[in-house]
């Protein structure tokens, strides 16, 4: 066919032809009996447009065709679509709308294809909206604007019905809401402004009404169950037919109305609120509470507060229980840490385990709850029981586990586990230095009197303490343990030395443990008058030790020694294991049959306290090796003692313990003294680096620096500052007496 000359199509003519095609399309959409478009039909329509657009002026009808395209929609909508919608209501209207929208989209698609040529060049040249946009705008401007409020209200009504339990046509709603989205042609403004906002407000209103009733009628757990269910349902609603972007806003509204508004009332409900749930160990309900409240801002704050109060109350109750039990103790046993106190420590450990599980499980390891637990424990773990500080109780507890006869029934794992937990408790105690000192004293006794049950456990707890409190905390204790190992090696050398020097033999089997002074607690060494037999021992060892090292001074601590003595009684000879003090006293009776208290004291050169104690153990306790005149229960300075040759026991070997002096007072004194030095050192350190500092800041930094070991008292710090002023380390500023200066 000839390509250069085409017959010019007249506008009216051409439009007539197009109109036929449009009418055909409308019929198909209306469901009339109309055959489908064949490809030839489509080609013709497309070509007609093409030709009319590419004709030479004045026959290039692009603009007119563009306008007529629009008019086609407008006509159809106004004549057919709008009337059919207006006559329907509620769900029927919605269905009609969906149908009409689908039709419209089809119409746009088809007509755009016919008029496609306009899209290619015309709209770009004139910066006009593309064809599909024109089509959609028609629907929007004529239908949507007219009807969207009604539609919205119908949809919301259906949603509320569904909330009340009715079955609704979800796919219908999904399609309707699809219109709100699509009509925005790329942005969500229509959906949000014309539907979502109102839907959200309606939702808020709905749940607000529900909550008003529920909060009064329901217990806290029941209310929470309902709340959780509601949230679940709303979430489902979003996935069923709302647009996904609505999820967060919707859930926030629900959370606000159900939880934020009624948070305090809910948590503080008399018999079913947070307190009650904790009291009754309602783990599931508490987990739910966490899940719900963690979503609202600061929702967990009150929950963690109640948790903290509860744990504090439980712990304080345990303290009181222990105090009450202790008040029934006999007066002479008052100062000794007894069984009840051990039970108390165990209970505290159990309490910690229990609520730590809560923190990990119910409260999903949230830091707020870790903090609450910590603060709660810090409150009651620093209360002593019956005159013993918590530091002492804990140290005694450890001693009982680690010493022989302490916890033989427990497996190794159980022991390790307990030690681990005890060390964790230590974190809550502010007087850590006091614990260290008590622990060290008891460790010394275990090591020196061979009372330690298991070396591995001893080392293990030191490792744990080191991890928790730092190397400085455990360095002395580790030194003590090492000393014992070295002592054993030393003993081997000593025995070799004795073998090689027969004239150096002391005549008695001698074992010496050399301790490094700095590591061990301080012991007073009294000038005990040793029996002659032992004097030689000391001399021999001294000579031996000189061969090993010349730079060290040996100080003998007889109060810590042990002696095996053979007692030649009438019935049978017996081995008696006693301390060196006791042995020295007994050996006096080799030279005299009867000795008075005064004579014994002067011969031994010990204090009254020591003499009373040792004589008591030998004459008034379980094994009466010495006879006492008069045979009263207590030692008096006028007593006279005699060797009890009639003594016997079914065992061949007995141990006569010397009860230790109460160390508590000394420990506390030593720790106080160390603290004074520590405070001094801290103040000087701070002032040296800052040069000038005001009082409050100095105190604050001091407390912080020392916090790892103990909580210094403000008054104590003030006193040390005054002392340092007197010693010319610091001075007050001339202008402002609240400020201190470092004096180099």
């Amino acid at each position: 066919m000839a390509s250069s000359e085409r017959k010019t199509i007249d506008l009216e003519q051409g439009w007539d032809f197009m109109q036929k095609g449009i009418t055909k399309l409308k019929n198909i959409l209306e469901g009339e009996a109309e055959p489908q478009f064949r490809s030839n039909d489509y080609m013709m329509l497309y070509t007609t447009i093409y030709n009319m657009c590419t004709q030479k002026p004045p026959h290039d009808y692009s603009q007119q065709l563009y306008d007529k395209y629009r008019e086609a929609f407008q006509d159809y909508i106004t004549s057919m679509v709008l009337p059919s919608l207006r006559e329907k209501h509620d769900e029927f209207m919605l269905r009609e709308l969906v149908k009409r929208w689908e039709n419209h989209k089809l119409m746009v698609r088809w007509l755009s294809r016919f008029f496609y040529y306009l899209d290619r060049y015309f709209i770009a040249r004139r910066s006009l909206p593309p064809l599909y946009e024109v089509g959609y705008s028609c629907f929007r401007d004529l239908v949507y604007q007219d009807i969207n409020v009604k539609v919205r209200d119908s949809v919301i009504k259906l949603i509320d019905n569904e909330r009340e339990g009715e079955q609704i046509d979800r796919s219908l709603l999904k399609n309707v809401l699809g219109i709100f989205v699509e009509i925005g042609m790329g942005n969500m403004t229509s959906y949000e402004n014309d539907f979502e906002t109102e839907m959200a407000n309606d939702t808020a209103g709905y749940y607000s009404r529900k909550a008003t009733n529920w909060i009064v009628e329901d217990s806290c757990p029941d209310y929470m169950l309902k709340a959780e269910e509601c949230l679940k349902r709303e979430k489902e609603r979003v996935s069923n037919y709302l647009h996904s972007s609505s999820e967060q806003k919707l859930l926030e509204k629900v959370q606000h109305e159900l939880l934020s508004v009624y948070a305090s009332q809910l948590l503080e409900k008399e018999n079913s609120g947070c307190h009650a749930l904790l009291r009754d160990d309602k783990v599931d309900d508490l987990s739910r509470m966490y899940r719900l409240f963690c979503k609202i801002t600061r929702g967990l704050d009150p929950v963690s507060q109640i948790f903290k109060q509860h744990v504090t109350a439980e712990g304080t109750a345990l303290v009181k229980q222990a105090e009450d039990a202790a008040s029934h103790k006999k007066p002479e046993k008052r100062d000794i840490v007894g069984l009840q106190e051990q039970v108390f420590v165990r209970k505290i450990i159990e309490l910690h385990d229990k609520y730590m599980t809560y923190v990990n499980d119910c409260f999903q390891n949230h830091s707020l709850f870790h903090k609450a637990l910590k603060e709660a424990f810090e409150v009651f773990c620093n209360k002593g029981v019956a005159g013993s500080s918590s530091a002492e109780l804990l140290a005694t507890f450890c001693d009982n586990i680690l010493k022989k006869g302490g916890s033989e029934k427990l497996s190794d794992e159980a022991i390790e586990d307990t030690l681990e937990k005890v060390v964790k408790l230590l974190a809550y105690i502010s007087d850590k230095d006091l614990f260290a000192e008590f622990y060290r004293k008891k460790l010394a006794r275990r090591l020196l009197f061979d009372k330690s049950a298991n070396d591995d456990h001893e080392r293990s707890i030191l490792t744990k303490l080191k991890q928790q409190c730092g190397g400085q905390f455990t360095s002395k204790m580790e030194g003590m343990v090492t000393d014992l190992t070295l002592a054993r090696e030393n003993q081997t050398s000593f025995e070799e030395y004795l073998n090689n020097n027969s004239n150096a033999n002391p005549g008695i089997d001698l074992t010496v443990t050399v301790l490094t002074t700095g590591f061990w607690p301080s012991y007073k060494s009294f000038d005990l008058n040793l029996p002659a037999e032992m004097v030689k021992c000391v001399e021999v060892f001294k000579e031996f030790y000189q061969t090993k090292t010349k730079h060290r001074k040996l100080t003998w601590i007889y109060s810590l020694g042990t002696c095996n003595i053979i007692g030649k009684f009438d019935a049978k000879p017996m081995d008696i294991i006693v301390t060196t003090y006791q042995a020295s006293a007994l050996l006096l009776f080799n030279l005299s049959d009867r000795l008075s208290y005064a004579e014994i004291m002067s011969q031994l050169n010990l204090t009254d306290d020591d003499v009373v104690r040792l004589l008591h153990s030998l004459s008034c306790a379980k094994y009466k090796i010495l006879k006492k005149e008069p045979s009263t229960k207590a030692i008096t300075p006028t007593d006279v003692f005699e060797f009890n040759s009639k003594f016997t026991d079914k065992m061949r070997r007995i141990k006569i313990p010397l009860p230790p002096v109460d160390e508590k007072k000394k420990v506390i004194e030593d720790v106080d003294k160390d603290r004074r030095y520590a405070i001094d050192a801290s103040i000087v350190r701070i002032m040296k680096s800052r040069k000038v500092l005001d009082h409050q800041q100095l105190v604050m930094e001091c407390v912080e620096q020392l916090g790892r070991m103990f909580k210094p008292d403000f008054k104590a710090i003030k006193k040390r500052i005054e002392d340092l002023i007197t010693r010319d380390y610091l001075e007050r500023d001339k202008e402002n007496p609240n400020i201190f200066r470092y004096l180099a």
Partner: protein
Amino acid sequence: MRRSANRRTVLQKSIGLNSSSATSDPYRSGRSVSKEMENIEILFGNYADISSGDIEPAGIESLCSDISISHTDVRMLLLAWKTKAKRQGYFSQYEWCRGLKALRADTLAKLKKALSDLEKEVRSPQNFLDFYSYAFRYCLADIQKNIDLETACELLNIVLASQFPSQTKKLIEFIKFQHEYKVINMDQWTGFLRFCNEINFPSLDNYDSTLAWPLILDNFVEWMLERQN
């Protein structure tokens, strides 16, 4: 402690007739200065102990009776202050001359008047602080840095009671009552004056123990408040 004889001769030489080197006051004429100095020296000689060359406690006793002022009177302390005497109960010639010269007193009558005037003059804040601090140092024995409680209380009475009678009374009562401190040091002493100047009494409402007040004052306030309730 015996002052060396050399010192006296040296002083006498410098205080001698060469008036221009001896006076620091440009408005004084040379002749009246030297006459005044002479009188002051004569006065010194009246009370000085012959062997030591200084005025000793006995000399001070006579001085006190001559001017009818008790030796526990604050004016005697003021005299010591003006002379900047180093040792309680003793005046060296140098100190004596320095003091009386500053007071422009070369007769006993003038001295007594000057001391009474001084009592009022010392109340100005700067002067008083200086005097107050001096009083403490004056009471220190040898190399001590503290004074015992009893002396401290007496001193408070002499020095502070006229200006702050109620505070002084209560402070003294407390110091005697408490057991924590057995001596008073300079820092605490200075603290007492500051306390009297700054803290409302007896309400004590503006006292803040978290500030750097000496601990003894914290304890004092606690004690006062307990008794008020």
